[in-house]
């Protein structure tokens, strides 16, 4: 058995491993992996450009600007769009009421309280679908990507993810090729010290960091490593530190501006699958960062997500065999 395999085995044996113990073990694995990844080429050396005719229209090299509306021009130029007050307060309040108590009626109001471990809680809760598939929101996404979009992932924590710089597309199958976007819904006014969403406007035009190329530097054992709690692959955790360091270097090299999304209740940020972004570290510990995040792909652009269902209020979502947990 490989060293990592033995470690993971050990983690699963003797007694149930706590999340914190696992995190400590994972840190050790990451550290050893990073030692090898020091030899990676620079950012541009890990990139590749998809064929122009395979990406959404607004991402292509030549587009007639006269045919674009203001939202589309903003998207093409900057890789993000903020729609102020797009989402109705009653939909937000209904979701917050659901999210803020558990099945026994106990309040879940601290930043570390999590309601769901599932990445797809929308499957079981119409309140989430009502928000994330709100027809005017879906219409905006369709106008930006050029395809009907469907929901397939939620992040429902009220605490910054603190995931460092990355592009979403790098975490997804190569076939997605930009037919993808994500949203950050402000459930309340975002406080600057709560670890707001930070992004680099225009970074969606940087070369596309290739997940395949990055993964080629990992061993088979590392690629096979999964989170014992969720079963999710952990390769991106292993490479995150290197990717974020390279990205930081790229930001400095380009002299790029950074921007925070300081949304107010009802505002929504839509960001491009190639936009470099991160969840910042809260300056005040335990400060709530009131957000609901959703990720979407274009209908017909995911061979791994073919089972879609229509929400009664409009919009589509991917169906998985996942319990309400």
């Amino acid at each position: 058995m490989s060293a990592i395999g033995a470690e993971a085995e050990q983690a699963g044996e003797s007694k149930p491993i706590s999340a914190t113990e696992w995190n400590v073990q994972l840190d050790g694995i990451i550290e050893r992996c990073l030692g090898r990844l020091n030899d990676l080429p620079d950012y541009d050396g890990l990139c590749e450009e998809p064929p122009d005719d395979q990406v959404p229209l607004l991402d292509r090299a030549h587009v007639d600007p006269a045919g674009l509306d203001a939202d589309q021009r903003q998207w093409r130029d900057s890789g993000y769009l903020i729609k102020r007050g797009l989402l109705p307060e009653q939909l937000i309040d209904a979701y917050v009421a659901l999210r803020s108590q558990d099945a026994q009626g106990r309040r879940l109001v601290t930043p570390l309280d999590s309601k769901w471990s599932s990445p797809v809680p929308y499957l079981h809760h119409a309140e989430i679908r009502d928000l994330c598939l709100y027809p005017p929101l879906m219409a905006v996404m369709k106008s930006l990507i050029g395809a009907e979009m469907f929901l397939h992932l939620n992040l429902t924590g009220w605490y910054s993810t603190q995931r460092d710089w990355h592009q979403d597309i790098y975490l997804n199958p190569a076939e997605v090729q930009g037919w993808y976007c994500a949203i950050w819904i402000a459930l309340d006014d975002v406080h600057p010290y709560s670890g707001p969403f930070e992004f680099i406007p225009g970074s969606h035009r940087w070369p596309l960091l290739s997940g395949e190329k990055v993964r080629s530097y990992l061993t088979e054992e590392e690629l096979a490593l999964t989170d014992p709690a969720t079963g999710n692959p952990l390769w991106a955790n292993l490479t995150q530190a290197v990717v974020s360091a390279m990205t930081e270097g790229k930001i400095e090299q380009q002299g790029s501006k950074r921007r925070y999304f300081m949304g107010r209740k009802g505002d929504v940020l839509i960001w491009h699958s190639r936009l470099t972004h991160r969840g910042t570290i809260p300056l005040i510990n335990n400060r709530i960062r009131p957000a609901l995040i959703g990720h979407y792909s274009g209908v017909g652009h995911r061979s791994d997500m073919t089972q879609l269902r229509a929400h009664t209020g409009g919009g589509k979502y991917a169906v998985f065999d996942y319990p309400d947990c």
Partner: protein
Amino acid sequence: MTGRFRFADLLRPRVSATRAAPEAAPPSIDALHHISRLWCDQANIFVKGWAHAYERPVTALAIEVGGVHVPITQFLPTPYLLDYFPEYPHLARAGFAVHVPSAPQGPMRLVIETAAGRVVREFPNDESMAARSSVVDHAPKNVFDGFAMFVAAIAQRGTPVVELRGPWDHPERARFLAMIPDYVDFSEYRLGTPVETETPDVATLATHLSSERGGIFSLGLLDRVPEPWRLVADGQSALRHHGAFFHLVQAAGTHAEGWEIGRDGLGRLISPATMFDTVALGDCFDGTAHWVLARKR
């Protein structure tokens, strides 16, 4: 308070101890504030922070406590807000610092006035203060889980960690140390001398720890030094922002040296008052010891 639902409402008790402000804010005015310092005694309150109403310039700002209304006449520089709100240059002066000649009775209110209306925000019952003043609800209950969180914090940050040791070592020390990965830059300072005498080691601790540490911990030391509050203060100054602070003390009656520090006392010694956010606090080893995990503000 009537009007728009806010997250702060979730954090209030179900039966609110505070009453609705007589002049409830119109729901249409958005405003944001932060209280960075709140000091009070029986007759005085000092409040420092910033407040703004986004695109709307603030025309007047005041603190109200009970029947006392203190207008804020001078706005202090807050250039750092422009990092977050570059589109509103007027936020470069959104700070305030005010003395209120009043006992801290009842809710304190920050009144933000704009040309379009006013917003009233109560504090310290708001989210930030509530979150800051309480131990995390889902804190680990087990001391080793707590120490694992400490280790995870320092490992993540990759900054040096230091153990402060005294003349006595906790019997489980090796078990704690085994949890620290090899790659962590780990060092230890033995304070060494008995607590009955003056200990120059402690007095010069700040010198020893002059660089920024990612984490500082001790196992059975804090209750055996002559001035535990000084060790806490020196440790605070030696930690980098959000650095981790873990201490285990022997429960009262388990030894005759130094101080008897109970769990609650430990929680007060390392708390927002000494510029730490408490992450977890607990008893361990059949009640013979108490421990605290905190994070530097």
